[in-house]
Structures are given as structure tokens and as C-alpha cells.
């Protein structure tokens, strides 16, 4: 489990099947801002299984300038994305 305020990195791995981690986030570092409940794992639930065990879901916040280093967005602007536990690593 990750805690609110903890720095995390989104796993950079490829995943061929259905999953909920957008490509633009892979390998990016962010901060856990909310710890949601746990939910069925869509990566297995999408293939006719029960989706268990459930995966904890986190709202992770990223600096726009970290996600899109080539852009010159406002420094304070942020992206908030829900990411499942098994896609997060300690940063």
C-alpha cells in the first residue's frame, strides 16, 4: 500500500491487453494524492475471469512539465490520474 503524499513512479512496462494505464504516463514520477478503495482488476476482468484479487486504486498527481517536458505549460499545472497499485513503484 502507498500512502498519501508518497512519491511513486508509474511502471514503464508494455502491456498488450486491456489495461487502464495511459501510455503517456508510463515511467513518469508523481505523488499519491488520494487512496481510493480497491476494485476488480480490469486486466483480468476483461477476459472472462472474476477480476480478483482486487487492486487498490490511487489518484496520483503529476507535474505537467514532467509529463510533457517538450511543452512549456504553466509550471504549477498538474495532471491527476487514477492508477492501480500494480502499476506503481516506489520512487
Amino acid at each position, binding site marked *: 500500500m502507498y500512502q498519501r503524499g508518497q512519491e511513486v513512479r508509474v511502471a514503464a512496462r508494455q502491456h498488450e491487453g486491456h489495461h487502464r494505464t495511459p501510455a503517456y504516463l508510463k515511467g513518469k514520477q508523481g505523488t499519491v494524492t488520494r487512496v481510493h478503495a480497491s476494485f*476488480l482488476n480490469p486486466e483480468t476482468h*476483461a477476459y*472472462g475471469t472474476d477480476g480478483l484479487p482486487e487492486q487498490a486504486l490511487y489518484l496520483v498527481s503529476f507535474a505537467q512539465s514532467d509529463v510533457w517536458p517538450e511543452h512549456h505549460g504553466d509550471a504549477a499545472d498538474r495532471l491527476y490520474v487514477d492508477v492501480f497499485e500494480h502499476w506503481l513503484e516506489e520512487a
Partner: protein
Amino acid sequence: MHDRGGWLTDARIDRSEHELADWEVLMDSLAGALGQKGVMNVDELRRGIEGMRPNEYETAAYYERWLYSVEAILTEKGVLAPGELDARLET
């Protein structure tokens, strides 16, 4: 293909409004009913949409993608026989 975040595009956002047509409401409601009945779930619906050929995904209307997916998933599960719906439409 479905994972659109950050794709470079100059396309402006078409903000024209459209009330859902009867068949669109029906398609949405059928998928909801299939979910409630435990026949197929939303993750499977999305996996089926993501399984469309890219040119089909790009050109299909929103609920045409749902139709494609529901047919594909129900056929995979053996609820529909291959070609069964086509045969019905030809009679």
C-alpha cells in the same frame, strides 16, 4: 489507438450537440442490461472495442463501437453463433 492522451493533433473540438438517437439509447441500455445480468461486463465491452481494427475504430460512430464489441464478446462467449445476427437481418 484508443489510448489518445497527448496525441499530436491540430483538430479542433467539434462542440455541436446531438440528442442520442433511439438506437443509441437502446445500444447503451442493452449493454447495461447485459452487465446487470452478468452476461458481459464493462471491462469486456472496452476490451472488445479496443480489439477493433484501427481504421474501423477511427471511423465508427461511438455506439457502433459498442455494437461491434457486444457482438464480438457475445460470440466469443458462445451466446451468439457466428453469423447468427447476419442471418437474422437477411430474412
